């Protein structure tokens, strides 16, 4: 069955359900992005150390794997989504403070945030308006993610700056691919859950932003 036949075969109920899923996902995503930004500003204000980044990431990942799958179909899941995104936002504080200490730090952060917004809106808009099915990219993106994770673990101890930079460039591309993949899932996967979709898209945006910031900081910034 080709894509046009799939579109024609969809019932009005299915179309309404998809539109509701997309609306709920983007509404919750907007709210969690604002909440995450507030948490990031709070952690910047109190100047938490790098250990806070690690601990909040551990907390967020634990909630993501152990709690969210069990609460994704209940109202409690909304609280879990805010807890995950809040923790991840709080963990951004030390990173943002590091870049703000650079002479062009505010410009770097603004450029990375604006660039992330443009990339997300453009790719999401492309996937939604064309309604193409990007599910074929799943295996490719997962392979890339695994390679990056292995390289990141190795580079924690090797500490090669060029490898770190190359990984950030690869992560930008992988997260861009995941934005296409996840957005098309909202349209084509009848079992997609808006809480899970919100967290997926949030993680894509967060990783895109931090990798873009790293690239901009390393290639354009100064430690003055």
């Amino acid at each position: 069955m080709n894509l046009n036949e799939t579109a024609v075969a969809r019932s009005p109920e299915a179309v309404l359900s998809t539109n509701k899923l997309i609306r709920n996902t983007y509404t919750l995503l907007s709210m969690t992005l604002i909440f995450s930004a507030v948490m990031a500003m709070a952690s910047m204000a109190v100047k938490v150390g790098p250990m806070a980044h690690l601990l909040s990431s551990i907390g967020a990942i634990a909630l993501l794997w152990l709690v969210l799958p069990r609460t994704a179909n209940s109202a409690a899941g909304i609280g879990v989504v805010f807890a995950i995104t809040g923790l991840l936002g709080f963990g951004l504080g030390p990173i943002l403070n590091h870049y703000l200490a650079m002479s062009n730090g505010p410009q770097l952060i603004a450029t990375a945030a604006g660039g992330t917004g443009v990339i997300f809106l453009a790719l999401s808009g492309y996937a939604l308006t064309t309604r193409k099915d990007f599910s074929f990219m799943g295996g490719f993106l997962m392979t890339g993610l695994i390679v990056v994770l292995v390289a990141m673990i190795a580079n924690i101890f090797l500490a090669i700056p060029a490898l770190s930079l190359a990984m950030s460039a690869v992560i930008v591309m992988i997260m861009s691919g995941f934005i296409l993949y996840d957005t098309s899932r909202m349209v084509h996967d009848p079992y997609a859950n808006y809480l899970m979709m919100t967290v997926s898209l949030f993680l894509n945006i967060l990783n895109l932003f931090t990798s873009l910031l790293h690239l901009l900081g390393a290639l354009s910034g100064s430690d003055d």
Partner: protein
Amino acid sequence: MGEELWMKIGWALLLGAMLVMIWPRARIMMQEGRKGSASEWKSALIPLLLVAGFVLLLITSV
């Protein structure tokens, strides 16, 4: 120095745990996922190349 080492160990453990957790899903997606046609890959690669170009533009602009 002590805290730095613990940070490295902590990050390595967290990333290792992520690897272990996503591996089963990744294996299924790699083995059983839908294969894209040449035109489908083209429709995905063009926007990704535009993203790469945009990132280069951002790097040169700051």
